[in-house]
C-alpha cells in the first residue's frame, strides 16, 4: 500500500471519456494518495496534462514516434515494464477493445489479479480493494476480492462510473523503457479506417435501438433519424442482427453490447431476456411498441403503445420543434 493508483489511459488528441471516468474513480478511491495516468503513443505529451482535470497528480508518458500505431504486444511490454517497476497498488484500465486485451496480457505477464468489466469499486477499512462485476450479462453481480497484496488490476466498463472534475497538477513526465523489445509476437501492420462520425454505442449517453417491429432494413432510417436528432447512437436487437439488417457491432444484449446510456429508447423491440440484460441499467428507458403486452414495458420507465411508423416521425418532429 502507499504506491498510489494508476490509470492506463487512451485517447486521440484528447483523453477518452472512459479514461476520464477511470481517473475520477481512481481519485475517489485514492483519498490523498497519488493518482497517476500512464499514456502511450506518438505525440501524447501535448495533451497528457488534461488528466489533471480529472484528478491525476502526475502523467507518465511513453511518447515515441514508433508508437504511432497501436500494437498490443508493444503496449503490453511497455505497460508491464512500467507497472513492474513502480508497483502501484491498483491499476485501472478502460474496458474497451484495446484496454481489455492490454490489461489481460499485462496481468498474465506479471501474474496479477485482474477483475474485468467492473461496474463499481470500493476500498474497505482494511485498505483492501473490492470490485463489483456483472455475470450472466447482468442477471447477477459478484463482489470480488483480490487474494494477494501487491498490484491489483481492473478493467472498468465505460459509461457506468460518474465523471468528477478535481483539479490536480497532472504534471507530465517521461518514462523511458527504451525500444520495445521484439517479442515472439509480431504484428505486421495496423490499419485503422473511420466509418463516419457515428457516436459509439458503449459511450453514448443516448441510444435508440430498433427491433423486429421495423419490419425490414429499409425502415431503419426512422431509427437513425431519431438518434441523429437526439445526438445518440443506434442499437439493434439480436433478431435484427441475425437477419442481417444491421451489423453485429450494433447489437445490444447478452451476445452483443451491454449499454448504460442516460436514455435508452427501444423501438419495436419485444424485450426478450437476452436483450433486457444488455440495457436494463440505462438511466431512463422508453419503449415504443404496438403490443401493450410486450415484455419491454416491464422495464420501461415510459411506455408508449402505438404504431412506430406513426410514432417515430411524430417524435422526431416534436424533438426538433422543442429544440428550436
Amino acid at each position, binding site marked *: 500500500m502507499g504506491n498510489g493508483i494508476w490509470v492506463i489511459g487512451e485517447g486521440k488528441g484528447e483523453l477518452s471519456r472512459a479514461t476520464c471516468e477511470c481517473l475520477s474513480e481512481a481519485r475517489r478511491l485514492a483519498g490523498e494518495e497519488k493518482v497517476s495516468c500512464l499514456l502511450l503513443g506518438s505525440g501524447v505529451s501535448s495533451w497528457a496534462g488534461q488528466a489533471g482535470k480529472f484528478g491525476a497528480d502526475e502523467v507518465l508518458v511513453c511518447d515515441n514516434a514508433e508508437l504511432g500505431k497501436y500494437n498490443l504486444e508493444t503496449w503490453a511490454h511497455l505497460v508491464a515494464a512500467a507497472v513492474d517497476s513502480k508497483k502501484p497498488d491498483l491499476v485501472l484500465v478502460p474496458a474497451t477493445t484495446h484496454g481489455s486485451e492490454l490489461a489481460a496480457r499485462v496481468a498474465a505477464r506479471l501474474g496479477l*489479479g485482474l477483475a474485468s468489466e467492473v461496474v463499481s469499486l470500493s476500498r474497505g477499512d482494511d485498505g483492501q480493494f473490492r470490485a463489483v462485476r456483472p*455475470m450472466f450479462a447482468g442477471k447477477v*453481480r*459478484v463482489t470480488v476480492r483480490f487474494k494477494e497484496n501487491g498490484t491489483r488490476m481492473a478493467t472498468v466498463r465505460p459509461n457506468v462510473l460518474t465523471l468528477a472534475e478535481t483539479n490536480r497538477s497532472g504534471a507530465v513526465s517521461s518514462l523511458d523503457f527504451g525500444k520495445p523489445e521484439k517479442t*515472439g509476437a*509480431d504484428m*505486421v501492420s495496423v490499419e485503422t479506417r*473511420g466509418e463516419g462520425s457515428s457516436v459509439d454505442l458503449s459511450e453514448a449517453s443516448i441510444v435508440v435501438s430498433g427491433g423486429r417491429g421495423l419490419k425490414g432494413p429499409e425502415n431503419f432510417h426512422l431509427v437513425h433519424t431519431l438518434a441523429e436528432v437526439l445526438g445518440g447512437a443506434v442499437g439493434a436487437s439480436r433478431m435484427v442482427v441475425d437477419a442481417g439488417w444491421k451489423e453485429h457491432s450494433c447489437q445490444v444484449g447478452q451476445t452483443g453490447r451491454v449499454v448504460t446510456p442516460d436514455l435508452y429508447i427501444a423501438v419495436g423491440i419485444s424485450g426478450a431476456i437476452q436483450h433486457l440484460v444488455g440495457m436494463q441499467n440505462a438511466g431512463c428507458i422508453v419503449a415504443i411498441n404496438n403490443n401493450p403486452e410486450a415484455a419491454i414495458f416491464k422495464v420501461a420507465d415510459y411506455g408508449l403503445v*402505438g404504431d412506430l411508423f406513426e410514432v417515430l416521425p411524430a417524435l422526431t418532429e416534436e*424533438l426538433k420543434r422543442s429544440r428550436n
Partner: protein
Amino acid sequence: MNVIVCVRQTPDTESAIKIAADGRTINTDGLKYVLGPYDEYSHEAAVQLVEKNGGEVTAISFGPERVKETLRNCLAIGASRAVHIHDEDTSHDDALAIATALAAAIKPMSYDLIFTSNKGTDSDRGLVGAMLAERLGLPYVGLVSELELEDGGKALMCGRDVEGGQREKIKVTLPAVICAQKGLREPRYASLMNIMQAKKKPLETKTAAELGVDTAGAVKLEVEKMEYPPQRPPGRLVEGGSVDEKVKELVRLLKEEAKVL
C-alpha cells in the same frame, strides 16, 4: 494446417439464473449446458479453415466432467480430436488459471493457429484469449469478425470493429491466438451421422497436475458474494388520445420529470 479451438461450456443463455445457498455461486440444478454461443463461431471458423487448407481441428476445454459432453459436440461439428482438462473445483474457474492450464496443454502440441472466443456468456470476463497468448508468447488479435489467410498460409489478415466506429485491419504472423467475434462464420449443426461418428473420435483427459500446473495458485480473485441486480421501479404508460398527444407528453416527461433531454 492444424488449428486448436479453446471452447467453454456455458449454461444456455435462456436459463433462469438462481443464486445458490452459499451466496457466492449459482444454483446449477436443472441447468442445461451448451457450447458457448460465441464459441460456435470460433469453432466454425476453425473447421472451415482446415476444410479448405487441410489439417485438423483440436477442441480443448477446461472444467468438470460435464464438459466432455460439449467436447463430444465439437467432435460432431468438425473437430478431429478433443482434449479435456479435468477440474471439478469451481473456484478454479478463473481466467488466469484457465489460461495457464490451457497454455500447458497446448505448448507440446503442433499447431498453426489457436482460436478463442469473445467471452463466456456466464463469466462475462473475456480475458482467457489474451492471457493464453501471453503465456504462449504469441501475438493475439481480439474480437475478429473477418479473417483471411495470406502469404501462403503464413499470416492472417484480421478485421475487427473497435470503439468510435472504427475498423481495424491487423495482419498477424502465425502461429497466433485469434479471438472470434460473433458472426465470424455461420455455425453448423451436427447431423445424427456426425454425432455417431463423433463417438469414435479421440477425447483425451488430462488433469492440471499431469500438466504440471498449479491451478489453485494461479487463481488471484475470490468471489465474496453474489447478488441479484437492483430491480427497476415499475414504469408507466404515456397517456394521450392521439399519437401526437402521446408524443408531446413523452417529450415533456423526458424533459421535466426524467430530465434526460
